[in-house]
């Protein structure tokens, strides 16, 4: 077990190193460089005539004239050693300050979504498999098709529309306006939790549809296994039997795809956040992209991916713990 954890940990670090390289390349992709955009931002509309020399000065000042490899090493070195993600020019503040407590909000949304996903998909998937061919099962199949076809951001729009029509309320946002600038307190935390269910439901939408199918399919397979018949043949009560034998194994594919679910959620997060007006990393990422604020964008992309890689790691360990057949290297 310890070897397995170590092995997966090394794999995680290696993957993250490659990811950071790719993220850095994406940050470098937009035409022009940080100095160009910085100068343009700072002086446009002020009447100051910016010369090529001024820009060059900024470039040297920020070390942007160094070769790509050095800049990458600088960037990643500062992140790893000092937790410094560089400068966000749009705000003339360090990236870390811009991001601030949004990391925790994002993680809150992530875990709320995961909980909603599994609380819905696992029991209902099991129910559908046990009652295979019933009208409830049929209904769920239709729903899961729809869940895969209706993009989350459109669902968000539809929900907003009906909430507005029926209750006349704006149900978007992550907290009541009163708490927007307030320091963290229990009341504010509670307010956030109360606002969390909508984004969690919207983001869980397609993940639920997907996992529902997975759980239903595995559960159907497991129900036909000889071990279930054998357990029944030794007189194990039906409910206990279902939970202990097939359901226990039907959860394994769900656990093994936790990282995949996190990926899916983060993938949809920026757009859903834009629609629902959530002030967290996804929405910030979108704004950073639109403003070409690449240090902020890179930092967020790196954080989101790190969360996914970490959850993959967690899912590997969980799975090895759940399934004794999994051995190192297989």
């Amino acid at each position, binding site marked *: 077990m310890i070897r397995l954890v170590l092995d997966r940990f090394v794999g995680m670090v*290696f*993957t993250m190193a*490659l*990811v950071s390289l*790719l*993220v850095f390349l*994406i*940050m470098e*992709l*937009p*035409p022009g460089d940080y100095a160009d955009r910085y100068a343009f931002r700072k002086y446009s509309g002020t009447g100051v005539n910016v010369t090529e020399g001024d820009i060059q000065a900024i470039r040297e000042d920020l070390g942007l004239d160094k070769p790509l490899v050095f800049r990458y090493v600088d960037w990643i070195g500062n992140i790893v050693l000092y937790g410094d993600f560089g400068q966000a020019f749009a705000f003339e503040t360090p990236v870390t300050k811009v991001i601030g407590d949004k990391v925790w909000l994002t993680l809150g949304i992530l875990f709320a979504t995961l909980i909603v996903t599994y609380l819905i998909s696992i029991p209902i998937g099991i129910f559908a498999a046990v009652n295979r061919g019933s009208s409830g099962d049929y209904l769920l199949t239709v729903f899961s*098709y*729809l869940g*895969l*076809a*209706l*993009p989350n*951001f*459109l669902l968000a*729009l539809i929900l*907003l*529309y009906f909430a*507005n*029509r029926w209750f006349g309320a*704006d149900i978007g946002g992550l907290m009541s306006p009163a708490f927007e600038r307030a320091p963290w307190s229990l009341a504010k935390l509670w307010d956030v939790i109360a606002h969390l269910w909508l984004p969690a439901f919207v983001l869980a939408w397609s993940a639920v549809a997907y996992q529902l199918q997975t759980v239903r399919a595995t559960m159907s397979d497991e129900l036909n296994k000889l071990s279930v018949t054998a357990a029944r043949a030794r007189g194990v009560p039906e409910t206990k039997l279902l939970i202990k034998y097939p359901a226990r194994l039907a959860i394994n594919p769900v656990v093994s795809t936790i*990282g995949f679910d996190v*990926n*899916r959620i*983060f*993938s*949809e*997060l*920026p*757009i859903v956040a*834009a*629609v629902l007006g959530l002030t967290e990393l*996804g929405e910030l*990422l*979108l704004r950073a*992209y*639109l403003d*070409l604020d690449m240090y902020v*964008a890179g930092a*967020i*992309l790196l954080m*989101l*991916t790190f969360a*996914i*890689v970490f959850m*993959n790691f967690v899912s590997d360990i969980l799975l090895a713990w759940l399934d004794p057949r999994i051995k190192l290297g297989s």
Partner: protein
Amino acid sequence: MAVTDDVGAVGAAPALTPKQRRAAERERKRLLKYYSASQWTLIWWRFRRHRAAMIAFVILGLMALMGLFAEFVAPYGPTTRDVRYLSGAPQIPMFCDHNGCSLRPFVHGASTKRDPVTLRAISVPDPEKRVYVAFFTQGERVLILGLFPTRTHLFGLDDRQTKLHLWGTDDLGRDVFSRTLYATRTSLSIGVLGVLISFVLALIIGGTAGYFGGMTDNVIQRLTEVIRVIPVIPLYMGLAAAMPKEWSTTQVYFAMTVILGLFGWPTLARRVRSQLLSIRNEDYVVAARLAGARPARIIGQHMLPSFTSFIIVDLVISFPYMILSETALSFVGLGLRPPATSWGVLLQQAQSIRVIEQMPWLFIPAVFVVVAVLAFTVIGDGLRDAADPYSEAR
């Protein structure tokens, strides 16, 4: 008549009636046809029996045709403005109104007035004015498929002064129906091109990994893992954000297909690789090798056919991802940009609840997105069942 019937029944009682014999003959022919049918014919037969998939296939086909011939089907161009019908509601052709009925469908004319409160230009329907719907009307000059010039459109209104807006207009007075058709073409074609690009990449990358195995495979697997782990829409967004603002619509369009194709391959590549790796040691492949077949023949004759059908299924189910990604990117303004039209670009107009409340018809392109994705998914499922040689046949 009755006499011959009687005779037939009596005479054929112990043996087969001619009708039964014909049925038996038909059955024999059917079986012969079944046993001698090629793999693809079999797949097609099985697919045809999958009712939902067939329906999806027809719907998607219609959608594609409507997009392909958008110039002819759409009454107006994607950017044509009708200043007399700004933000207008859908006009549903009717046969009856308070003035009585008519055999030809018609709509009511409209005139633009100013809202007394907001001073916004709004169109007010004029229930006294009837304008009849007509087919093959003359309208704007267009090039069908970019080749054939015509002024004829599938349908329009008798009166050339008024325009028919089946699904209403946006705030600039552009016809939502026409725009949706043009958008359908853009969105579906981006899907096709994206899938093609990622397919070629998947074949090359997955093929290399699966054919060489060992160290090469290891390295490629690691790199694939890196790409799979980054959330895909933020990744696309990063690449799309880098597109220079001054690029033309065409440049952006092709850049989008490349971006979507560039990172759509990992799933497919994984399939190609694992199939190649597992087939490499199959008895029949080893047998072919021992029989002295050349590698090209082994791959072409023995390895590829065994999983082409799976690859086609994977191709079909990767369409929705392309379409949804394009829609999502354009929706937030990082994909295609006006004046280009795609489902995502159209939906961009319907981003706030206020707009949806006042002009719900701007949300119609969303229905297209959902139907297209649903159709692709159902077809994919049908194909998967049909391509499985062990599924119940005949």
